[in-house]
């Protein structure tokens, strides 16, 4: 049959190397997460206890249900903490390697910046900057392609949400200057 003459090949030049050294073991992260959850359980448990976690004339007080959930969460994370601690010696599974962390940060940091910019300059400006910047700097795609894609995408979003459907997004000085 002739349907499979063409092959689709996509390369990933910046792919993380397989032999990249590990930054941190899964077991360590598990311990940290369990500690954080335990702290959360204690904080929420205390708050609910203060709200009232017992019974009054009309039945359970508002804090009753969540208080016991905090106890369950605390118990679960304590169990997780102990079992992760005990398993730490035997298994050294990698949580993330150097190369992987670099790639994850390459998405996370721009996303974080995007949120900051959205707060001050509005979502549409932030969207344009994120797409153009990400394509150019991380994807190494030609500048004109990046700018064009970013502009077209942002414009479509603006027309769809702001003009056609009246869903108002955070806006900044640029939109104000354009009178929207």
């Amino acid at each position: 049959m002739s349907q499979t003459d063409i092959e689709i090949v996509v390369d990933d030049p910046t792919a993380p190397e397989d032999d990249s050294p590990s930054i941190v073991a899964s077991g360590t992260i598990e311990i940290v997460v369990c500690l954080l959850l335990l702290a959360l359980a204690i904080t929420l448990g205390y708050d609910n206890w203060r709200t009232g976690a017992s019974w009054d004339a009309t039945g359970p007080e508002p804090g009753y249900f969540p208080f016991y959930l905090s106890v369950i969460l605390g118990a679960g994370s304590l169990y997780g903490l102990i079992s992760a601690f005990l398993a730490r010696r035997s298994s050294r599974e990698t949580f993330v390697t150097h190369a992987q962390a670099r790639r994850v940060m390459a998405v996370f940091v721009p996303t974080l910046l995007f949120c900051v910019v959205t707060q001050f300059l509005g979502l549409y400006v932030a969207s344009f900057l994120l797409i153009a910047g990400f394509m150019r700097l991380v994807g190494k795609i030609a500048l004109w392609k990046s700018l064009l894609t970013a502009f077209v995408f942002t414009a479509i979003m603006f027309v769809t949400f702001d003009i056609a459907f009246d869903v108002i997004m955070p806006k900044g000085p640029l939109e104000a200057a354009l009178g929207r």
Partner: protein
Amino acid sequence: MEALGLLLHGFAVLLTWKTLVLMMVGLVLGIFVGVLPGLGGPNGVAILLPLTFTMDPTSAIVMLSCIYWGALFGGAITSILFNIPGEAWSVATTFDGYPMAQQGRAAEALTAAFTSSFIGSLVAVLLITFLAPMISSFALKFGPPEFFAVYLLTFCSFVGLGREAKHKTVISMSLGLLLAGIGMDTVSGNLRMTFGSPELLRGINFLVAVIGLFGISEILLTMEERLALRGHAASISLRVVLGVWKDLPKYWVTLLRSSFIGCWLGITPGGAIAASFMGYNLAKRFAKEPESFGKGRIEGVFAPETAAHASGTSALLPMLALGIPGSGTAAILLGGLMVWGLNPGPLLFVEHKDFVWGLIASMYLGNVVGLVLVLTTVPIFASILRVPFAAVAPMIVVSCAIGAYAIQNAMFDIWLMLGFGVVGYVFKKIGIPLAPFTLALVLGNRAEDAFRLSMIGSGGTLKVFWSNGLVGSITTLAILLLFWPAIDSLLGRVGFTHGTRATSA
């Protein structure tokens, strides 16, 4: 036969140009997210959900369910052509699908996958059509204790039957229930766990959490992997399609068996993955020459795809009839329904007949339209993979942010989404399952209300959960399921050995 009349009415509601166009758009978007690396069913629905906020509920849910079908179809494309399962439940499809593509039988494999998905969903939709009204009219008799017992059953079955470490499921679930309680208490009006923050007063919105947990975290996870891929291009000709369809009757046992497995596992939570593997393994076990599986046997595509789709579709049955979603994606659809003020559950069948039957009718139509669409457009969708991820990733981030903001017009929600993105990333990497969290977050307040109302009704004694035969048996079953692993091993020691264990693993 009331159901049939209502269903026909549902079709009448749907057969407008506007709805058909929405269906097509939904399917195309769904296939798009299904094909893209790293995205898939729940992620796609979560990201695209905000697009539907501007529509009326019927159009919106039609589009959402079509996104869901589309994503399911899309997963099969990458499994067969690229050996990349878009979803965990497509893994079994790669066993025979990819070898078929390598042998130049890609078109055949794709046709088989799409057709069997269609059959699986169809069986499940038929089940929904006839069973959902019955269950919901039965559930109309439920009071708060019965409802709480059913919620308890759902939560316990996640803990008892899930394959993750038990304490991780418990952590995930209790965290979800806790976060659901943040904000104003619906019974007393008191503020809980807000720590004086006006932002927390509104509570944590389910959809914001889902967009972060599934959308943002998936982008982070996808970037971690090598995105290079290599696969076959395929176009499907009518001759191949008819050839595969002509042979279908030969495989009726496989198709039927997989459909039943899928429907059964779909109604119980977390079933699609188990269903696809079980469908595959059983087909292999009952085959005349089991060793030919894994080398490009068409039954190896039929069996898992039918089961996965039957299960993915029947997961909507408990959601519609009882308000309890059977899968992560169903939970997100449930969250979507709540945005329009529709409360899934038995009353939905009474109060919003038009909507329910429109939705069920859209399942039939969406499947037919989807089948035709994927069969004709596979080459285009396969080439979506040529679009660089560096262009897709930021667009998905922007869509997620728009979605998170649009729900309550709050900048705080964009930050919350980012936070949940990080949480989702870390949880997935250390094996804390997200499905119980999602379920708990969406059901938390209802479960608590049901518990408190039963307590108020009974004067504070837990005996109310065993006060009659119905609620007593549900509660007992829930507790049995919670301790199922222990009971199972105890039974095993006494001498009941389990043959199904190896196949469902």
